[in-house]
């Protein structure tokens, strides 16, 4: 603010400005410590580790960019990247579409909607481990309900958790089950669309589809941007769902990654490298790649938003 008188702040409790700074820092001190210990230092340390060869039992040894070079020729790395990108590219648009359609349904004038909204959100409360085992049961080829329902409609029934081609899709299915949070955010956004815009559009003779395209979609576009960012970050990091779905009941070993490695996501492979193969330098390099990719994707999205996100009310 150009016209506000400037205050001078000094870290001296006897001066008014110094007191303010002292108080501000004192109240913020838990996070200042937490940020230093759990965020700032670890990011830098992980950057350094990514240039070293080390494990729990061996101090870091500097190896330059060797870990990054190894990624290029590591077939499992590419497989995990492919699986993660597949889940992201399918999961984000599907989540948005299901959430938006579902939000419209939950916005209908039907009695009992508060209960229905609560029920749709329920799957996100269920612990992912419990949800994962539940879905293994539902997707069971012999006793599971999913194939039973497909059988009613004479749709071919895949062997979900056994065929490599269906492994990733099983993970996608389990993730989409928890889309309720996204749906409720869209519902809140729908309720914020000014009613007079719909009335004006109706007077102009716009049908439901045109009202959606010209009124609803532009008005909620800033919420859509938020949802895309959150979903993208979540799908790029997806870990527990594939990790639980892939658990091998026979051996019980944590290295199993689904039929044909179809559930080996980036985060699962990162975890395996860090804590099972004890290649912590390599895992740190993977973590840094993930950070760079997440940052780049987010920035591109925010930059693109100027072309499709409308601030405030929809314009004609």
């Amino acid at each position, binding site marked *: 603010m150009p016209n506000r008188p400037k205050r001078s702040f000094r870290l001296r409790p006897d001066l008014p400005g110094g007191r303010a700074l002292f108080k501000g820092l004192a109240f913020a001190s*838990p996070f200042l410590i937490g*940020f230093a210990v759990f965020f700032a230092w670890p990011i830098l340390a992980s950057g350094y580790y990514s240039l070293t060869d080390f494990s729990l039992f061996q101090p870091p040894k500097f190896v330059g960019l060797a870990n990054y070079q190894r990624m290029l020729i590591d077939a499992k790395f590419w497989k995990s990247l492919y699986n993660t990108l597949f889940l992201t590219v399918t999961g984000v648009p599907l989540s948005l579409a299901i959430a938006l359609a579902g939000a419209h349904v939950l916005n209908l004038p039907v009695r009992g909607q508060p209960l229905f909204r609560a029920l*749709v959100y329920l799957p996100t409360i269920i612990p992912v481990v419990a949800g994962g085992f539940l879905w293994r049961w539902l997707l069971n080829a012999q006793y599971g309900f999913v194939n039973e329902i497909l059988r009613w409609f004479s749709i071919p029934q895949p062997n979900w958790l056994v065929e490599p081609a269906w492994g990733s899709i099983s993970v996608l299915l389990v993730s989409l089950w928890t889309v309720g949070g996204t749906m409720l955010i869209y519902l809140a956004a729908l309720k914020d669309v000014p009613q007079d815009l719909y009335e004006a559009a109706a007077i102009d003779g716009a049908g439901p589809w045109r009202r959606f395209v010209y009124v609803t979609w532009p008005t909620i576009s800033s919420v859509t941007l938020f949802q895309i960012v959150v979903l993208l970050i979540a799908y790029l990091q997806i870990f527990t769902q594939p990790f639980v779905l892939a658990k091998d009941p026979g051996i019980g070993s944590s290295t199993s990654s689904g039929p044909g490695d179809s559930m080996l996501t980036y985060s699962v492979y990162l975890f395996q490298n*860090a804590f099972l193969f004890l290649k912590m330098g390599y895992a740190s390099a993977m973590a840094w790649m993930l950070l760079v990719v997440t940052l780049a994707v987010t920035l591109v999205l925010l930059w693109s938003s100027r072309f499709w996100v409308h601030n405030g009310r929809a314009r004609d």
Partner: protein
Amino acid sequence: MAAPVISLQRGVNWVAQRAVTILLVAVFVFPFVVMLTTAFKPTDDIFSAPPELWPRTWTLEQFMLAVNQFPFFRYLANTLLISGLSVAGTLLASPLVAYSLAKLEWPGRNLLFVTVLATMMLPPQVTLIPVYMLWNGLGATNSYLPLVVPAFLGTPFFIFMIRQFLLAVPDELIEAARIDGASELRICWTIVLPIARPALITSAVFQFVWTWTDFLNPLIYLNDSDKYTLSIGLYSFFGQHGVQWGPLMAACVLFTLPAVVIYIAAQRYFVGGIAAGAVK
């Protein structure tokens, strides 16, 4: 007059709206219903092809098996302890930081706010290994410290949410208390935070459910099976004696129940919290 046509159309609309709502809800709830009914079936009923939804006889057999086959109550106590401590930490630390960001004016405040937002976006994988090495260096792996201490240093998401709520608290209230000579900590605790109760409850229930359901952190830090949480206990239980679907589903029900009870009790806070995240 076309009145009958209109009322017919209304009737069709009325039915269609309800049908589509029920279909939507059914898709999301059906898996949960299968978990419940499977847990109450006798073992023979569970393995029927084609599968049947409703148990022919209701029995607690699977629950007894589950509780006897793995130390459910020990894991329950462990999980409750970790979740309770995390909630305490969140309620102690995050409001203070939020107060500093919303109601105190000091240089660097905006920088700190941006920092809080940035850390919310950070993939946890990036800090995972150095933080693990840190706890390892302190000899604290295989203890609950790595799972609990971070909450006492403030969680970015909750700091952000409480801060947004505090912005709406009128400054006059705080000014008046300052003139009366109340200390800042006293103002924060006795005047501002009681007003922010909804945001605090929302933070507490979210923190509880997150810790309750957390998988990655207990997986990395806990080695002794005595110290396992329900997440890790259930994970390692799977396949130990072959796959026993009955006890497994019963254990899943028992594991899920507390989270669902909290969710039902605090449902309006959940919905408020979810929507708060999307506010520009």
